[in-house]
């Protein structure tokens, strides 16, 4: 590892270095996010000068480059350490997951405060939203590489390795080993399609029949919204455009979701097969896999699968000898922004912009990437499609329910004996799922992640499916021992951090909700504050621009409805308690004056 920010004193040298990093990265991939990643990686930050250079090199307004740098969590204008450590703050794989504050512990050992870079530039530390390691306990990213199953002993070893400046490749390799943890396999997880079998079946069917198989299968999107996949493909196909695009949404940012990580890791052939089927059906020549930055460690593997598929004639020109059927896939890696999972924000990000959701209509099927007709589907949706062309719509429909055909792959985490991946036919009850994963004393389950629904034990006989409990795949179990308010506060912080900031209700509202909940959780809330939460949460839900804002208040609303006691037991029984906390306001002064005695506090 090289610390090039040392070279800052030598301006000419820095300029040359920045220029060469940009030129090299651009030659490899012209995508703005990739060029910025190279700079962040090698210079540990993206300076004003670098922003100007990138703008010049890519012929973009410098304000656009600036805006992008400041939007994504993994780009920084102030140098990070040579070891940049980011703890997940998810309730399942976060630094508090084991009940001990591992981040504070590491901070103490390295003598560093969160969100800071140490004076010697060796190390920086902070927290980041769920990194999708929820079945492996507390986890962190060090220079982008995940380390899982953290415990107190490992924290001490990490501190020592950092202080000794041990290169990452010499850290215990087992720490980086992320197993799949597949516990129950159904329709899709039984096997990764051997390369090309789906495509051969598809060519035998022809375009029309391929499309009609997908429509008849009743397949609905697995990313959350549940739109008919066949309909989406057909709509896209019918739109005139200079080009059609196929985009796979592998952003998987919903806390508690990690099934796409496993699918990308062990079922990549099925995925690319499914994207190619889609390209055949809609007439696309170019596809993109939008991979969340947290999963960058999967990039070499995914790229090797693409290379192999090109060698086998499964991607590229005249696929499988079919004249005129050409299609290829590029991978674009995100940089830490949950909102980029929203399909129109994802497309903006693909176009090298901030991930701001577009006004809809028009929808991506008519005006998507570069304004052209575009299909955006989840990883699991494409894999299901590949299986459907091979095995037929009847095979698929035979599983699941009337409205929800097929199976659903769940990422189960939280308070259970066997967290991991479970594939069930749609229609399975929560109770069944809880039994299977060994969740003995669940008081509540978060279905579909923070944006989904929080249900209590009275509802455990409800069923998974689009007509009852819909889920993108996350299922977090909370035992009787959990303080649900802590969970709800955690989710509120998540949404406030991830709001893109475009529309007023979500930009301001998520922060107000976060602050209001913090006030209640710290024992300063009154009945009035609770009523305010309810009113504000409803406004944010009903009036926000996109799905993020429209779901951000769900944990609070569900909590108030189903678990009012977790709020009420924290209330102070006064009519009014000011928001302004005099004692807390003195915190900065105490820090500056290094005082913490009684006289430095106001009660």
């Amino acid at each position, binding site marked *: 590892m090289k610390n090039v920010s040392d070279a800052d004193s030598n301006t000419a040298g820095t300029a040359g270095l920045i220029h060469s990093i940009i030129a090299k990265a651009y030659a490899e991939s012209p995508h703005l996010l990739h060029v910025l990643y190279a700079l962040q990686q090698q210079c540990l930050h993206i300076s004003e000068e670098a922003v100007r250079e990138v703008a010049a090199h890519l012929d973009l307004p410098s304000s656009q480059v600036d805006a992008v740098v400041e939007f994504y969590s993994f780009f920084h204008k102030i140098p990070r350490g040579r070891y940049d450590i980011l703890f997940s703050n998810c309730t399942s794989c976060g630094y508090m997951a084991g009940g001990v504050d591992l981040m504070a512990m590491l901070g103490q050992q390295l003598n560093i405060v969160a969100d800071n870079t140490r004076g010697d530039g060796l190390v920086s530390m902070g927290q980041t939203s769920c990194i999708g390691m929820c079945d492996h306990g507390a986890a962190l990213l060090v220079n982008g590489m995940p380390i899982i199953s953290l415990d107190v002993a490992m924290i001490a070893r990490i501190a020592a390795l950092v202080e000794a400046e041990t290169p990452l490749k010499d850290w215990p390799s087992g720490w980086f080993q992320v197993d799949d943890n597949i516990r129950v396999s159904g329709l899709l997880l039984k096997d990764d399609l051997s390369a090309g079998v789906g495509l051969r079946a598809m060519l035998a069917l022809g375009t029309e029949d391929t499309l009609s198989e997908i429509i008849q299968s009743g397949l609905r999107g697995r990313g959350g919204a549940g739109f008919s996949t066949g309909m989406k493909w057909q709509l896209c196909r019918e739109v005139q455009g200079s080009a059609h695009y196929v985009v796979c949404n592998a952003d998987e940012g919903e806390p508690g979701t990690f099934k796409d990580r496993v699918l990308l890791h062990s079922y990549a052939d099925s995925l690319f097969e499914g994207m190619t089927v889609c390209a055949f059906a809609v007439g696309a020549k170019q596809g993109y896999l939008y991979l969340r930055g947290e999963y960058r460690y999967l990039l070499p593997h995914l790229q090797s699968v693409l290379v192999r598929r090109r060698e086998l004639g499964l991607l590229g020109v005249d696929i499988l000898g079919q004249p005129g059927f050409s299609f290829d896939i590029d991978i674009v890696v995100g940089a830490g922004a949950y909102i980029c999972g929203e399909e129109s924000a994802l497309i903006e990000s693909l176009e090298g912009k901030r991930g701001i959701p577009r006004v809809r209509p028009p929808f991506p099927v008519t005006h998507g990437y570069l304004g052209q007709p575009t299909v955006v589907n989840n990883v699991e949706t494409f894999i299901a499609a590949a299986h459907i062309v091979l095995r037929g719509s009847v095979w698929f429909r035979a599983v699941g329910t009337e409205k929800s055909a097929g199976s659903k792959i769940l990422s189960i985490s939280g308070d259970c004996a066997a967290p991991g991946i479970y594939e069930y036919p749609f229609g399975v009850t929560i109770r069944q799922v809880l039994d299977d994963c060994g969740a003995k004393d669940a008081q509540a389950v978060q279905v579909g992640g923070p944006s989904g629904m929080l249900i209590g034990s009275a509802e455990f006989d409800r069923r998974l499916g689009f007509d009852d409990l819909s889920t993108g795949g996350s299922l977090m179990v909370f035992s009787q021992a959990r303080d649900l308010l802590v969970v709800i506060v955690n989710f509120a912080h998540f949404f406030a951090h*991830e709001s893109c*900031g475009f529309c*007023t209700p979500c930009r301001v509202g998520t922060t107000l909700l976060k602050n209001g909940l913090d006030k209640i959780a710290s024992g300063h809330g009154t009945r009035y504050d609770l009523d305010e939460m309810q009113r504000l949460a409803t406004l944010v839900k009903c009036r926000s621009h996109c799905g993020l804002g429209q779901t951000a208040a769900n944990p609070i609303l569900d909590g108030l409805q189903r678990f009012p006691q977790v709020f009420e037991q924290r209330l102070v029984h006064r009519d009014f308690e000011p928001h302004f906390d005099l004692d807390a306001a003195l915190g900065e002064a105490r820090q500056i004056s290094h005082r913490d005695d009684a006289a430095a506090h106001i009660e």
Partner: protein
Amino acid sequence: MSADTKQNLITQNTITIDGQEIPFQAGQTIMDAALAAGVYIPHLCHRQGLTPHGSCKLCVVDIASRSASSHNSNRRLQAKFAVDADSRSASACTMPAVAGQQISNNTPALNEVRKTITQMLFIEGNHICPSCEKCGDCTLQAMAYHLGMLDGHFPQFFQHREVDASHPTIMLDRDRCILCELCVRASREVDGKNVFAIAGRGINAHLVVNSASGKLVDSDLETSDMAAHICPVGAILIKEHGYEVPIGQRTFDLHQVSEIGLEKIILTKARQPDE
């Protein structure tokens, strides 16, 4: 009524806002149709002639769901109209007008929502109205009056925001910016420049200037640009023109924000007492 005649009624190009039938042309949004008919829907980030943005959410309206508007007798429809569960929220400035839409706009509930959103805009920035040159000409302030807002209601965020006084004739005070992007769009779409953009995420979103130094002085913004005048609040101000029109004779001392066609008056800054 037979299904056919009902269908005919619906396919005529009209929408209904608060019970008033309003014509529209293909391609118009609800806001376009409403303003053309002289119906005010509150708005801050919208300006005729610029691409609709849909970010401030002052223009939220409720549209009765299809099922309520298509197969119910008129009386039932009226009854259903009042029920929230049967409608969905939309931004009037971006939502295309569709024949037969039943829209509620000027209702106490919606104006309460709008008041709360206006309060949000006030407390996230630093708005010290009495000391602001825009006082009386400010659309945000006028909106607050229009909606009967008496205080910020929520605790202030007290955010740190940068002032850019580098330009010889134009001042940028981000404390007052409400992120409406009117200046961003005016610069791109009318001035043919690209002076402004929004950077950052969430509550840290802020206006940036497209120049090497990030300062206004190094941008190609000129006093004659629309972007220099379009700001609805006092974030972008022309220098050396303070308090030429006394308080009491300013735009919103003489006009209601709900008057249609005020934009011209505000933009030309011709604020004569007899207007």
